């Protein structure tokens, strides 16, 4: 996988509908009809989203059956996951250093709380 294809994968995943499609496909193959069902969208709109996912190599479609079921391509998703994990550890370390630095220059502060998630 090249950096360009990683970019393409991220571009594809930037859209919430496409992430929803990916999430649905983690449960198994599905046809366009099945994918369109939970969305308030026409089938052609869903098909456009699928094309972006296909171009990014994240989804492939069966050739044999007329319904051409969609399925996930695990390898590129794993590349995305690897990048995210690498970037996460980079920032975990960086925030650790920032925390130490702030403490060393701001006597009143105590240990920072780690990884508090909002929402």
């Amino acid at each position, binding site marked *: *996988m*090249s*950096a*360009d294809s*990683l*970019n*393409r994968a*991220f*571009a*594809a995943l*930037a*859209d*919430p*509908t496409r*992430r*929803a499609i*990916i*999430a649905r496909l*983690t449960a198994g193959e599905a046809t366009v009809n099945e994918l369109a069902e939970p*969305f*308030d*969208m026409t089938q052609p*709109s869903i098909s*456009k989203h699928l094309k*972006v996912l296909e171009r990014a190599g994240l989804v492939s479609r069966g050739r044999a059956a007329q319904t051409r079921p969609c399925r996930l391509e695990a390898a590129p*998703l794993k*590349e*995305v*996951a*690897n*990048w*995210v*994990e690498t*970037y*996460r550890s*980079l*920032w*975990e*370390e*960086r*925030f650790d*250093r*920032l*925390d*130490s*630095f*702030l*403490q060393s*220059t*701001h006597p009143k*502060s*105590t240990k*920072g*709380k*780690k*990884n*508090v*998630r*909002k*929402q």
Partner: protein
Amino acid sequence: MSANNDKAIATALFEITRVFDTPRERVWRAWSEADQLQRWWGPKGCTIEIPRLEFRLGGFFHYAMKFAGAPTMWGRFNYREIVALERIVWLNSFSNENCGITRAPFSDLCPLEIENTVTFSERDGATTVALRAKPFGEVAAERQYFEDLRPSLEQGYGGTFDQLGEHLAKLSGR
């Protein structure tokens, strides 16, 4: 959570949040002044030298990363948005010694540029720093293409971000 935050989460894949028990103004300085950035920006095990810091819209932060016994690596920020005490948006990439953009010296798999957005908010003297990131490039065209569809998509899929996160975590064996 504000609509802005919702939108941001819907368009970024990577998010990390940390609470620092330090007032916001102090944290902001750590992000905006060269002698402060030098002390923590890292990465681990390297000394940072900063030939250039223009902390303004369109300005560059250019830094050398010096590891013992290894060639110097260079990196740069290009600032795209600065709202004092609130947020900074910048493109981060590797660079040469003249601040020209380059690929990562160790891997072709690193995105050329990463768009980072950091926001700061303070409560009871503690500052929450939230960082979101995504590879930059090729994104704009496709995003524009789908912008027309967006209004019909905005509701009801908040949970999918978490699902995807879980799925990706599973893939990476966590």
